[in-house]
């Protein structure tokens, strides 16, 4: 029987595409940040603050954190449904898996809201 959260999952192909697109976004962001830090070895707080106050940079950062959230949701859901199953750990598995998925969803949502709060200083 499909668990409560499984019904909210994406389909196989969309999961696959989301994982690849979010990976590319995260990789681009990582290269950009590492490149920026390497080309600015004597970085000051003002410079860093200025970079992150630019609207495109804020949108880019928010997009990447959203990408991390989607990537982690799909990946962790895959891990949970592989390892936390009735077959492997008995009847308590469904409840435990749903609790963990709910906890994960809550955590990722908090990260997103926290990122918006940091970037826009709300």
């Amino acid at each position, binding site marked *: 029987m499909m668990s409560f959260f499984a019904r909210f999952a994406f389909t*196989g192909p969309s999961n696959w595409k989301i994982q690849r697109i979010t990976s590319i976004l995260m990789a681009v962001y990582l290269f950009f940040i590492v490149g920026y830090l390497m080309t600015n070895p004597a970085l000051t707080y003002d410079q860093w603050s200025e970079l992150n106050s630019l609207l495109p940079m804020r949108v880019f950062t928010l997009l990447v954190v959203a990408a991390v959230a989607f990537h982690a949701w799909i990946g962790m859901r895959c891990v949970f449904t*592989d390892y936390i*199953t009735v077959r492997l750990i008995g009847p308590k598995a469904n409840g435990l898996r749903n609790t963990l998925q709910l906890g994960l969803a809550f955590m990722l949502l908090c990260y997103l809201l926290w990122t918006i709060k940091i970037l826009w200083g709300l």
Partner: protein
Amino acid sequence: MLNVSIYRYNPEVDAEPYMQDFEFDTQGKDLMVLDVLEKLKIQDPSLVFRRSCREGVCGSDGVNISGKNGLACITPLSECVKGDKLVVRPLPGLPVIRDLVIDMSQFYAQYEKIQPYMINNSPPPAIERLQSPEERKKLDGLYECILCACCSTACPSFWWNPEKFIGPSGLLQAYRFLADSRDTATEERLANLDDPFSVFRCHGIMNCVQVCPKGLNPTKAIGHIRNMLIRGTA
């Protein structure tokens, strides 16, 4: 002397499975594992295993030989004996009925799901549905599967979700019909596989390729199905 350790379990007698050790004289010959099992069965008639053709065609004697799934009848001792020890267990991941015999119902249930037969509702031509040599060539490496279950029972995704993940053997067969120019149910077949488990639980670790006694490549076939699903095209 060869030390042979065999998984034994008779649910009517044994509280739990155990490994039984046998001494076996190969007389210097590089026998097949099935030969050893046959001779040990003469020593101990209670030993149970499946076998039929004894030449790698029927797929009955899939067992786990010194840690690797394979067909006992075509696996020579020289390939699987470590030191002087041979360990034979049932294929992992499926329920054991007795000794080396497993219950393959789950495996066949997944095979049944993929509709392993030609679907073409157009009126048949007078003689036969023709294929070009190129179209026929696409079936090479797919039609040879003998359903021994060595691949699916070597796949952790199949161990964990045998009810939802089709498994490498079933997916190889699924692609065999998706790739067949005479089959017209491509969209229906793909729709049946379009969920997060049936195909996409394959993480490409290629255990299936490593163990397939027929040298087939289920991971490659799964990749083709995945691409068809992602592109949404036949």
